[in-house]
């Protein structure tokens, strides 16, 4: 391999001060995704204050978030089950950065919450009402719901999961 490989690196100032020619562009790509049968019903359930899963009649697995198929048996699933709004922290992080990498003053605690009675199935959410140092894998948690009148059929209808003390 060559000792002086190709590539001309720039500093941020070169770009900011237009030392080199650049073109800027704001994309306007927008989407309106159809939630479909399974996620549509899941989100409707959240609006009603319920966590819904699907069950495979072949292997008995409960899927949450739900789907209309069992990916392991490759069968259509049509059995719906209402799940409790309690669970266990499978794993978590204490995040000091926002999506755009800006720094947060108060950390967010994202976690995978295994929903009770769903085997090890669960979903990504946030842990609240907890000091960062007290959150542990295996911690028991319960959903804190948004008020019924502001729920809109979104994952954020659960505001967060709080520790069960």
């Amino acid at each position, binding site marked *: 391999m060559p000792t002086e490989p190709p590539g*001309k690196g*720039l500093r941020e100032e070169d*770009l900011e001060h*237009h030392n*080199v*020619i*650049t*073109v*800027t*562009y*704001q*994309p*306007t*790509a*927008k*989407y*309106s*995704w*159809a*939630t479909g049968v399974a996620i*549509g019903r899941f*989100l*409707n359930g959240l*609006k009603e204050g319920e966590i819904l899963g699907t069950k495979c009649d072949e292997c008995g697995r409960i899927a949450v978030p739900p789907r209309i198929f069992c990916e392991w048996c490759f069968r259509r699933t049509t059995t719906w089950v209402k799940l409790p709004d309690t669970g266990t922290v499978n794993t978590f992080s204490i995040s000091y950065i926002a*999506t*755009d990498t800006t720094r947060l003053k108060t950390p967010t605690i994202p976690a995978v919450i295994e929903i009770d009675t769903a085997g090890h199935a669960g979903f990504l959410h946030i842990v609240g009402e907890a000091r960062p140092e007290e959150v542990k894998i295996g911690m028991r948690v319960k959903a804190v719901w948004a008020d019924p009148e502001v729920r*809109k*059929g*979104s994952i*954020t209808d659960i505001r967060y999961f709080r520790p069960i003390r």
Partner: protein
Amino acid sequence: MATDPGTIEGDFPVHFRYTAGIAGEKFLKEIKDNGRLVAARCSNCQLNYLPPRIYCERCMSKLEEYVEVENSGIVQSYTLCTQDREGKQLAEPVNVAFVRFPSAHGGIIHRTHGEVCVGDRVRAVFKPKSNRTGSILDIEFFEKEP
């Protein structure tokens, strides 16, 4: 966000800043500073790439020699575009042409001043030097040669 559980709205919350690159920098700077069109020469294939590249797409030679292209082209095809980039109707339809240059491989796609036909001789009209920014839009449009 989700007002109807039947759909979820979303986008890409980013924007982009593209460098013109090594050859693009040379090309746009020549337009900006000197009102000239330059091509990159592949001596292996005997082709002058317009816009210039740092490589010949046919033989993958590295191109480092730039040659001036005379500002006199020929309309290869034209169209009358009625919509903007998002599909909205333009207030005025825009004449667009693909212009080839006899001494160059490639050409320039740009607006034309008024209608043109295939085979018409046209030339690039540059913006006044003080208004040029180092963009393909430093060419105001192409116009028919008198």
